[in-house]
């Protein structure tokens, strides 16, 4: 049995709806979706996030509530906020419910970036391009099913190094 719009407006319990890493030009370096969107919706979201995030500067907050004017996604978007942080030319964005804890996710992003930095020894955008399949592993170690899975950098890195050593 499938409900056609199972995710529409509902389940306040899913924390993270998606994680996006984009550069200034709008190229996506990672897109991790925790709810079902069709391809057009994903594309629309990617563009929309880029549009709202890149116009903001250091005087702005790291949080944006967004309204979209596409059909399904617009309605969903009204419930959400984007929590983002810029590192050099890359924007790390997490989309969560409006009631979620802004600062916890903001630091969640930073924690993730520090792990990437350690794992790739001074991470740069190209690392994410060439090792895109490893980045997914890092994400799954730290965030799973839209929830924070592990927060200890030591534990995550130990696990990643162990996996790296496997054939």
């Amino acid at each position: 049995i499938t409900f056609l719009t199972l995710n529409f407006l509902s389940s306040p319990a899913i924390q993270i709806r998606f994680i996006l890493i984009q550069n200034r030009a709008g190229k996506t370096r990672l897109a991790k979706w925790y709810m079902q969107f069709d391809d057009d919706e994903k594309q629309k979201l990617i563009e929309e996030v880029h549009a709202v995030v890149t116009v903001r500067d250091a005087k702005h907050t790291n949080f944006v509530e967004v309204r979209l004017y596409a059909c399904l996604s617009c309605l969903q978007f009204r419930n959400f906020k984007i929590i983002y942080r810029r590192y050099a030319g890359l924007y790390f964005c997490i989309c969560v419910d409006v009631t979620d804890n802004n600062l916890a996710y903001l630091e969640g992003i930073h924690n993730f970036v520090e792990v990437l930095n350690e794992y790739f020894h001074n991470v740069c955008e190209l690392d994410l391009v060439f090792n895109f399949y490893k980045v997914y592993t890092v994400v799954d170690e730290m965030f799973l099913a839209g929830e924070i899975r592990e927060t200890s950098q030591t534990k995550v890195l130990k696990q990643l190094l162990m996996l790296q050593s496997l054939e």
Partner: protein
Amino acid sequence: MPAVSKGDGMRGLAVFISDIRNCKSKEAEIKRINKELANIRSKFKGDKALDGYSKKKYVCKLLFIFLLGHDIDFGHMEAVNLLSSNKYTEKQIGYLFISVLVNSNSELIRLINNAIKNDLSSRNPTFMCLALHCIANVGSREMAEAFAGEIPRILVAGDTMDSVKQSAALCLLRLYKASPDLVLMGEWTSRVVHLLNDQHMGVVTAAISLITCLSSKNPDEFKTCVSLAVSRLSRIVSSASTDLQDYTYYFVPAPWLSCKLLRLLQCYPPPEDGAVKGRLVECLETILNKAQEPPKSKKVQHSNAKNAILFEAISLIIHYDSEPNLLVRACNQLGQFLQHRETNLRYLALESMCTLASSEFSHEAVKTHIETVINALKTERDVSVRQRAADLLYAMCDRSNAKQIVAEMLSYLETADYSIREEMVLKVAILAEKYAVDYSWYVDTILNLIRIAGDYVSEEVWYRVIQIVINRDDVQGYAAKTVFEALQAPACHENMVKVGGYILGEFGNLIAGDPRSSPLVQFNLLHSKFHLCSVPTRALLLSAYIKFINLFPETKATIQEVLRSDSQIRNSDVELQQRAVEYLKLSSIASTDVLATVLEEMPPFPERESSILAKLKKKKGPGAVSVELEDGKERGELNGGGDRGGDAAIAASNASTPSPSADLLGLRSTAPVSGTTPSAGSLLVDVFSEAGPSATSAGVNDDGFLSSAPPTVASEDPAPPLPESDELLNKFVCKNNGVLFENQLLQIGIKSEYRQNLGRMYLFYGNKTSVQFVSFNTTVSCPGELQSQLNVQTKTVEPLVEGGAQVQQVINIECLTDFIDAPLLNIKFRYGGALQNISLKLPVTINKFFQPTEMAAADFFQRWKQLSQPQQEAQKIFKASHGMDTEVLKAKLLGLGTALLENVDPNPENYVCAGVIQTKAQQVGCLLRLEPNAQAQPGEQMYRLTLRSSKDTVSQRVCDLLAEQF
């Protein structure tokens, strides 16, 4: 090309990625990709079996191509093959491809499930985690069917590795969210809750998300988590900054886990156990204390992590709303943040303070920050921060500061961003009316509002100002003068012209003595705007002109000239033409007396205290009420007060908001003001029905005639309710009339009507036999809690019911607050000497007190969003017991009492409804969504029903009631 030199090279992949990056044009990129796709296709089709490494490399290239935005239509089988590899890297690429590319209803799921099954039972923690992550990422129903039984076992097994436990917990959470019916926690509940005690903080971090979700859906089953969460939190909060080693982040011990623990506690009321509560309060105090300590690091990460916990703690304090000391401390802390140099903190403080403002304990403390907040509204660079400041000003407004706040908001409106203007206008209008002591201030404010932001002023707002002016003769002259002055502006908003036309038409005489605003000057001023206005406004102006002829005979010739002109009397618009013709005739034929009668000053609009009970009480005194209630002539007035009141009430009951303004200009009924928040929405309702039902029922209570009727003599105890009485109750959820009960002897029919929080029910007892019933006696009782929730008043019936006769009983019901149970109706009588004793549930359900609310899609979703706390939502997924006929469904939803909103849900199969439940204590806004899966086979058709309201008990009850109807 850093990656090539790094790690386990898939050299071919790195070369391919470099090639793509070096492409100078989109065409070149597509060419390169097509070449690669051809190459991979030939490899996959070739005779030579590929080794695992090549397969992995090609699948990974396909994935890369897909992520670039190109369709991939092959390679799935190769990816599935990789799943059964023994090598981690191959397996990982296989799982990754599937997680990213396979949508949940793919044919491949069965094949994948097989591989997952093998990995789950492999006892290799790395493989187990890969398999669990795949389930968590895909989360399809087929996967839930296959693994929902197995994963809880893995989660609680003693020998499971910690990292596997973490993945299993979140995997289970995903399956529960996607298919709650398949995840049965029953026997695992207690062991899952005890994961809060796990030594490994990572396990606790993951498991608590699962527990929070399960708790929000089944709070009772999981309530033992409260004390465990408190003791865990207490251990973290009291630990030194280095105690937790790996889990200390910039000198803050376990910030994310602390936040999650505090959030879990928000699923529950304050702990009942004094010791637990004490410990929790201590934790919250410690968190507040720590915010005052000097930072252990200058890094923003340190303060963010610390404040993440602080804000979550404040959310919990607000959620409890029972500790005045903590609430005030929270408010003071947020007050410090209001001036912090970090924009994030100022924003969050404004947001959080907004909820504090609504608590009686902290409202005053919030108010002390008014200057800072006004300053934020004026100076913040980020519009979202200004928006929060405006929200907070609105929330902290009361009689003492209304003038200041309204003035600031008005001046902000002059420069406000378009995105928030409409909301601001509404807020100003609501505050101005709510706190108006001095009505000239009110008139000034609304006219200013129209002047500054006329486009955003909805009809309700300007209707209301006219209504108030008409009802208050002390402000009429002032209003006429002010609107006359406002109309002097060369360009003024059409809404201003409407208000001007109406007010000068009624009260222009009050300023006509001044030669600067003589009748002719007034007329010329209005008429100078005429040609710039739309048809409805012109129609209104024509009515103003005929009123002028009545008020000022000296203008008659001029105005008749205007009416007679071709542009009026031959206007292509029928309405305008008709008005011009009729008014012209009226002015030339009718005598002055007739004209004066026709165009008499508008009588005051009824304030909506129009309840029959209040009226009766005033007129007759308590004793006569029951008799009067049965009087046919009076019956129509159940819905309204006086003569006009009745009409207004009926108009309002047809209209969406109970706003008498619907009636004001004889224009179409009004939709509720757009852009309101639910609270604002109900405020508005409040405003419009000021001193309405609450005053009435309060008055009624003073005299006590609505209190439950004293139980009449009953020699035998009432029988317990019939087993089928719940079913009988369900039959009447969506309808008001019908046969409630029937057996060999007796038939009970029912007719009922509801208005606001009052209801009247007629019961018809029919004797089906030819023998009389003696000692016929009926009582209605409210068991338990219901006694304080409903007032039910009945009149006793005659003790003799002749054979074949029918007797009638009237029951008056007043809903004091929301309720769950139904009143019990007990009927006793003797038939041929034998005592009959029947108890039934009276079909009085909470939905009967719904007032339908029409709203546009945007408002619906905004309100929906605002009701997003887990406890505000109730949801049920259930099998369809009847067909899914659209008309039948619609009829049921309308019968529920809500407004059925068209064109709101983007999926036309779904239904959304909105209504306000009226109780004496409060009004509870309620939003509903019903999603049928009509495509499914008969027998598998299901619904998902979601209710959101500002009160958890209401969401749940309406959800339960309605779920039985389909």
